[in-house]
């Protein structure tokens, strides 16, 4: 069975899904997917979908951002071609499946829309309201939010039962996990369809309840939080903590290396947001070290300096 799965092209393994026995192959396939927002996440999801042979309507209000997203995908595919992993035909096929759109009403043929706009509740609710008017009543509308309440975003719809969360991980065309978020009003049918799409994209869906941080961002908090506490208490240096966590814990990266990679500002704002959403629960309290580094513009790799220096190349 394993070998069979390996030999299949992206998307084809869905034919083996146990759901086919119940619903039939055609009913379950999403053929037209809408993606709202062509940033890092939206572009990555579009790429994953196009590789899984889904026609993608990629929307962004900004034409430049749309073109940049397409360029990124094309560059990655070209890289694949030079390495012999992708054929020229495949590259063309993937690119022709992505249709850039700058008008939301162009998303009306989509059975499924993924919203991947910026993390702003008002903007997302506004988009949801517009999407409801521009799509078929049967269409599923999901948000790729990582830090906002899916229930709150879905409340913009007259029918919130057709909304859910679909939290992809960066880079979305590579990372296998999707947190499928059940909002307070999400229906079982919606949840099934969302899980099926995750499968169609070759991802592993994990169903989570709509709570701050879902699973990954929440359970990962102590990895950074306790490391910062240890550093703040001078129990060990950041190099020592990274060494111990990697060598003994088997983690691929230490907490300080990872904070440098993610960006101190991003990591701090996720922690702050969890702390606020749990009404000051002490487990999520950010550390003054983070705040001070953010204030000083020491944000990690992207600024050349975080816990480590990245002046020459890497650490």
């Amino acid at each position: 069975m394993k070998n069979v799965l390996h030999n299949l092209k992206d998307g084809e393994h869905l034919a083996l899904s146990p759901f086919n026995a119940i619903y039939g192959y055609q009913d379950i396939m999403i053929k037209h997917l809408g993606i709202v927002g062509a940033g890092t996440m939206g572009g990555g999801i579009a790429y994953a979908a196009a590789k899984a042979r889904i026609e993608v309507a990629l929307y962004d209000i900004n034409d430049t951002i749309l073109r940049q997203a397409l360029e990124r995908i094309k560059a990655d595919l070209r890289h694949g071609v030079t390495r012999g992993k992708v054929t020229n035909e495949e590259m063309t096929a993937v690119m022709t499946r992505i249709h850039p759109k700058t008008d939301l009403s162009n998303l009306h043929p989509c059975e499924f829309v993924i919203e991947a706009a910026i993390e702003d509740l008002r903007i997302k609710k506004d988009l949801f309201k517009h999407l409801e008017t521009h799509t078929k009543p049967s269409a599923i509308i999901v948000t790729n939010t990582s830090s906002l309440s899916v229930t709150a975003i879905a409340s913009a719809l007259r029918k919130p039962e057709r909304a859910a969360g679909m939290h992809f991980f960066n880079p979305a065309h590579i990372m296998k996990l999707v947190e499928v978020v059940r909002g307070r009003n999400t229906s079982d049918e919606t949840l099934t369809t969302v899980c099926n799409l995750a499968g169609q994209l070759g991802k592993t869906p994990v169903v989570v309840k709509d709570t701050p941080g879902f699973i990954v961002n929440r359970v990962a908090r102590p990895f950074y939080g306790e490391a910062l506490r240890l550093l703040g208490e001078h129990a060990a240096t950041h190099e020592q903590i990274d060494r111990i966590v990697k060598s003994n814990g088997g983690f691929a990266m230490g907490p300080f290396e990872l904070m440098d990679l993610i960006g101190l500002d991003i990591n701090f704002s996720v922690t702050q947001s969890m702390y606020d959403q749990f009404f000051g629960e002490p487990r999520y309290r950010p550390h003054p070290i983070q705040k001070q580094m953010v204030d000083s513009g020491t944000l990690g790799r992207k600024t050349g300096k975080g816990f480590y220096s990245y002046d020459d190349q890497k650490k």
Partner: protein
Amino acid sequence: MPKGTHKVKEKTKQKASVYITGESPMVEEYAGMCREKGYEVFTHLVSGPGGRLTRPTKKSPSIPRGIHLALELTNADIESKKNNIRRLDEALPPTCAILSSSVTVSASEQAAWIKGKHRLVGFAAMPSFSRQPLAEVAPTMHSPIETIEVIRKFFGSLGKECEYVQDRVGMVLPRILCQIINEACFALQDEVASPEDVDTAMKLGVNYPQGPVEWADKIGFQQVYAMLTAMQNDLQEDRYRVAPLLKQMALTGEWWKHGSSPGEGQP
């Protein structure tokens, strides 16, 4: 024992002897590793299988003569640990170092229990940790360079390098790992997802080598609970409050909500 004298002569070097006492399965793990490396090993367990606390019914057996190094591996039962450390201090010559787990009590506090304060050095011992390449070692304010050198050579003989950290309850990896497990237990209690899905999410979403639930099973919920309780007592902060589900698992070995599968239903 072979009686022929020629056999004794073949042994050019005398085997070093290690006395290992404490909780299961750490004692067995370290005993196995020390035997592999050619040490003569004597063990004494203070807890039964699975780490369930069982006070020794008989009087503790006497410590054999000629021990070169003693390991004390108790994290959960601090009274037993105190008895063990005192027993070792009384029985062993002052030149014999005591390497003691300092995950739930700082090494300095342990040194205060005994006369030979110079001989005790702390390190991070938890079940399943014994094969790790680094030894997290916590010398105390009383540890002379000679004691630290003995410990370094011992860990070196087991193929481990020493990472010297400050003598703080929880140390480094146990503190980070147990808080991850604690957070996972809070999430399970809130029925955010199923235990299997929590593990899958952490492995696929952030490339954790193991899921927190798997980890807790490997380390043992009693050990995780003992460690977090010690952290809470040490720092007196709500941050280290133990998830009731984790406590329940530690004390009874059962899921809190029997018969319900986490991750289903809404409040």
